[in-house]
């Protein structure tokens, strides 16, 4: 069982985001593994374990040869990674990103299963996994919240508007998994040391044969960036044991009780 996990390295979400001069998200500082992707990495490791063999590989697209987030996933137990890092990729839209990651997965020789998060925590376009599946001609199960593999067939519970669907899907396939689907492990000290020497194959968009990319390949152009009207803060009080009365009075004032 060989599994490829798509991982994104993003600016620390604890820090406020900012745009650069081209209205792209600033990604020049240290990047970290998107927490949403740690669930996919964990699931891949568990599925490979359950299958009794195989390995977990990573694909990622990031500026400045960034590997900090990849090393976290490698420390968790992934074996190797393909990193696509290329200044030409700045400004790429989600479709171009999907083409790049699909090509990176093919560079790894494909896999029995490709796993992605439902959306990244910085750009959150939420289309890349399903776009990759279409590019690679694979069946897909998005928003999977429970996954198992038995006899080459994947079974998943997929989130729907009204509840969930049980879905079966033959391999190879692609899935996107919701956060909380498994409990991501913390990298061990041994894992962190081992990750330093695991292979990261760094390539350019041209190595993958994907053109056009970046601003030129995006079917969109940012025309303006404005500040939204700010919502003003109201009254803030410390609870002295009677603050519940304030809430009752507030609700009465709104005539909802």
């Amino acid at each position, binding site marked *: 069982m060989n599994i490829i996990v798509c991982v994104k390295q993003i600016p620390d979400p604890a820090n406020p985001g900012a745009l650069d001069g081209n209205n792209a998200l600033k990604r020049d500082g240290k990047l970290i593994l998107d927490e949403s992707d740690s669930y996919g990495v964990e699931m891949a490791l568990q599925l490979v374990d359950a299958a009794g063999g195989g390995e977990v590989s990573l694909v990622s697209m990031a500026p400045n040869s960034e590997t900090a987030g990849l090393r976290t996933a490698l420390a968790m137990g992934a074996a190797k990674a393909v990193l696509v890092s290329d200044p030409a990729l700045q400004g790429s839209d989600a479709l171009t990103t999907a083409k790049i990651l699909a090509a990176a997965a093919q560079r790894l020789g494909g896999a029995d299963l490709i796993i992605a998060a439902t959306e990244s925590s910085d750009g959150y376009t939420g*289309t890349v996994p*399903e776009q990759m599946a*279409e590019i690679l001609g694979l069946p*897909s199960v998005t928003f999977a919240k429970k996954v198992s593999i038995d006899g080459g067939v994947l079974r998943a519970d997929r989130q*729907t508007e009204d509840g969930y669907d049980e879905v079966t899907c033959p391999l190879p396939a692609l899935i996107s998994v919701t956060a909380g689907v498994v409990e991501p492990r913390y990298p061990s000290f041994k894992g962190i040391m081992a990750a330093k020497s695991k292979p990261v194959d760094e390539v350019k968009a041209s190595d993958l044969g994907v053109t056009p990319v970046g601003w030129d390949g*995006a079917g969109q152009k940012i025309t303006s960036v404005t500040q939204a009207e700010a919502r003003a803060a109201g009254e803030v009080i410390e609870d002295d044991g009677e603050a519940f009365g304030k809430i009752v009075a507030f609700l009465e004032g709104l005539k*909802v*009780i």
Partner: protein
Amino acid sequence: MAIDNIWVFAQVSNGGPTTASLELVTKARSLGGSVAVWVAGDGSTVAGALGAYGATKVYGVDYGSNLAGSAVASAMKSVIDAGDSPDLVMFPQSYEGRDVMSRLSVKLDRTVITNNTDIAVTGDSVTVTTPIFGGNTLVSTTFTGGAPYLAAFRPKSFAPESAGSAAATVQAVGVPDLGATGTAKVIAVHVEETTGPKLDEADIVVSGGRGLGESAKYELVEQLAKVLKGAPGASRAIVDAGWVPYSYQVGQTGKVVKPSVYIAAGISGATQHMVGMKGSKNIIAINKDKEAPIFGIADLGIVGDVHKVLPKLIEALQGR
């Protein structure tokens, strides 16, 4: 050309189009041109409802046990290849909507812009507005390259208004051979029963977060929601922790709510949560950390322990 031919993908839930879908049909008809709506399933059952909001045609895709994404996108592509090509396709940000738009985007080699809250048409040009950084910044993006332009919208971006028009005509569209992409099959459908008003339609929403401390304390949130005849919601943190199902989540990845009153109990106000609730008319926040970002947008903020404030509040309301 102008934007003459608009398609909307409508999500059907509980036998009818979702409110988010009707919002898009309403907006589409205001952009001029004709509006055709696509549904996954039998078009005839929703032709009346969709027609009333301005759709003149409904394409129904009988997708059987397939997943909607590949089946509907392939059916759309077959109609486009046969000569009926839209200038603009609007999608709700629903589970099926996302799959369909992503597959179609690749089939047409066109970008798809998601998370929008507004759209404007000027001549041939289509510009969408996307809030970023928790809604503090608005980005306007114009499609370049050729039509069809593909855009997805957050729920509650537009007000749904019936035009009182007649039922739409219905055209059934077959699913082309999907090859490997059609091998994922639904084998069982589970509907999660909920009591009380739906989270994204309730007039009052009470949400709980990590500040509740432990899973069992979520009961306080449910009790308060019940006494206010509202719906209980949750932050991503406690959904990820498995305290409540995913369907309770308010925020970027969950539901967008705009109730008259939103009560945030033990929620600090991460960007991902604020995006889903900052459109509420009135916001009440209870949190023990007075520096919590949620107080920056609350109309009434209580710096205190939810375990002390909520029981007293519930008791006071029950006694009325």
